[in-house]
Structures are given as C-alpha cells and as structure tokens.
C-alpha cells in the first residue's frame, strides 16, 4: 500500500485508463466510445508525464534566474507531439461518425450490426 501511495500519480492514471477502457467496452454509442478512447489517451499521457516529475522541479527553461532541478524535458516533448496526434485521429473518427449517421441514421453500434 505504501508503494501505491508514493506512486499516486501512476495509480490515478491507471484508474483513468480503466474507466476509459470500460467506456469503450460497455458503451454502445460511438461518440461515447470515442470519449473513452480520449480518456485512455490522457491517462497514458499523464502516466508518461508522471515518470518525468522531479520534486521541486522547475519548468525546463534555462536562462537568467533558473536553477536546477528541472522537470524532465523529454516526456514533455513526446507528449506535446502525442496531443496533436490525438487531435488528428479524434477529428478523423468524428467525421467518420458523421458519415455513418448520414448513411444509416444511427450512431449506436448495436444498430449497425447487419446494415447494408
């Protein structure tokens, strides 16, 4: 238990990951599934960011007045890229959902079984 309390940032991102996974598995609505996927993504981002936390660390911006320790800049760069990639696939999935609604009049995945 003590190990879990020390790593509470990791624990929180695991819980968020599980919530998003539940939304993907148990929800019918395609928009809800996509929100679950977005929650999973943010959870993974939070996990990677948590691995770069430094106690008392400043933002990794050098210059006058800045002194170590600095927060880890590598996860920040990677997650910055990841957020924009998440935006692009969300936009693509949402436009597919709009097309599905125009074609079949529903966005519930159960109703989409067996449509032609």
């Amino acid at each position, binding site marked *: 238990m003590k*190990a879990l309390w020390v790593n509470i940032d990791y624990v929180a991102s*695991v819980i968020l990951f599980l919530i998003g996974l539940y939304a993907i598995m148990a929800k019918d609505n395609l928009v809800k599934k996509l929100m679950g996927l977005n929650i999973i993504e943010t959870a993974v981002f939070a996990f990677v960011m948590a691995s770069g936390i430094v106690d008392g660390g400043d933002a*990794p*911006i050098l210059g006058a007045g800045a002194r170590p320790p600095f927060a880890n*800049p590598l996860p920040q760069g990677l997650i910055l890229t990841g957020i924009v990639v998440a935006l692009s696939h969300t936009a693509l999935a949402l436009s597919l959902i*709009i097309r599905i609604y125009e074609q079949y009049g529903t966005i519930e995945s159960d109703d989409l079984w067996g449509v032609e």
Partner: protein
Amino acid sequence: MRRVIALAVLILASVPLMYAVAQLPPIGSVQNPTYTHVVPRYLAEGHEEAGAENIVTAVILNYRGFDTDGEVTVIFTALMSVFAVLLMPRLADKKREEGLPAVPVSPVTYFVVRTLAPFIVMFAIANIAYGHAAPGGGFQGGTIIGALLIATSLVMGSERVGRLLPESIRPWLQPAAVLMFSIVGIAGMFLLGEYLSYPVHGPYVFLRTPFLTLIEIGIALGGAAIVASIFWTMEGSEG
C-alpha cells in the same frame, strides 16, 4: 450482460497494472531511469547545441526533429482524410444541408469573443516569437490561433471568418508545416550532408536560429490552418 463482462475484464486487468505500478521507482527522484540517459545532456548543453533556452522546444525541434516532422505529416494526413470522408460523397450527390442549425448567438458571447480576440492573437504571436526562450512555441501559438478562428466562426458565422483564409492561399497554408520541414531539412542536407541537421559549429552556424524560426512559423501557420479547416469541413461549409 456486456457490462458484467466489461467489469470482470477491468478487475482482471487492474491487478497486474496495480502490481506493476507498485514496483515502479518512486516518482520525483532525479535518480529515476527516465532522467539518467540523455536528459542530463539535454539540460546541460541544450542551450548551446540546439540554440533554444526552452529545452522542450530544443527537444521537439532539434533533438527529436524527426518525430515532429512525422507528427506534422500525421495531422496533415488527418485533414486530407477528413476531406475524403466528408467532402467527396457530398460532391457526388449534392444533398448536404447548410451548416449548423441557426441558433441565435447570445450578445454576451458575441461581445466577449469580439473583445478578447485581439488579445488572444497577440498572446499567440508572442508564443510563437518567444517559443525558444519562454513557455510556448509553434504548436501552442498555432493551435491557439486555430481555436480563435473556431470561436469567431461560432459567433460570426464561418462564411465571414473563412474569408480571412481565401481559397487561393489555403492549399499553401494547410501543408505549411510539412513544406517548411522539407525545405529546412533539404537545406540542411545540402549544407551539412544529412536531412534535417542543424549547424552547431562551422561557417553556417548563423543559420541555426533562422532555421528554428522558419520551422516554428511553419508549424504555427500549418497548425492554425489545419485546425480551422477541420472545423469548417465538419461543420458543413466547404473546407
């Protein structure tokens, strides 16, 4: 039934995940594995080598430049896919309805957006211009301008805001980030022998800051144009 199965899967999955989390090294120590390999060098020499005081900017534009090159290609491809999904069938059958249902805009929203817009533009431009030395950069400034275009479209109508980006320059703005990466990358190839290499020493070192600035501006223009175009396409006015 499906909820029961889903909950069972979650409980099964949570056990190994929590076990693994308990085994990870404690958060916050400078001795952690993520902090020991390349990061000390980034922090110690990033300013000299990459030419940016903001080490995050140095990482995304210089040390991990290929990642960012791929990433701007991804978001450009996403825009092309949104066009393909939403625009092509409409051109075929011409039966699309006109835009969003007309909801009257509250005067408070209209006033707030109109009043804040110039300050948001200033903030975004400061972000892009000082991205090497302060928090911010091409991504941040570009997405802020894109979000501002979306917000003004919501209160003033896409037709009026869309005229800011005329059809003639849109095809050049949308791939601006990809084009700028290619230009700088190939320039680096001719000058230094490798794609997307920045001069650190030697006769061309004065080109390093212009290279970084060009890529920042390209990412900002491309990001803003792509974000706004995705919104306009999904909302129903032509991308």
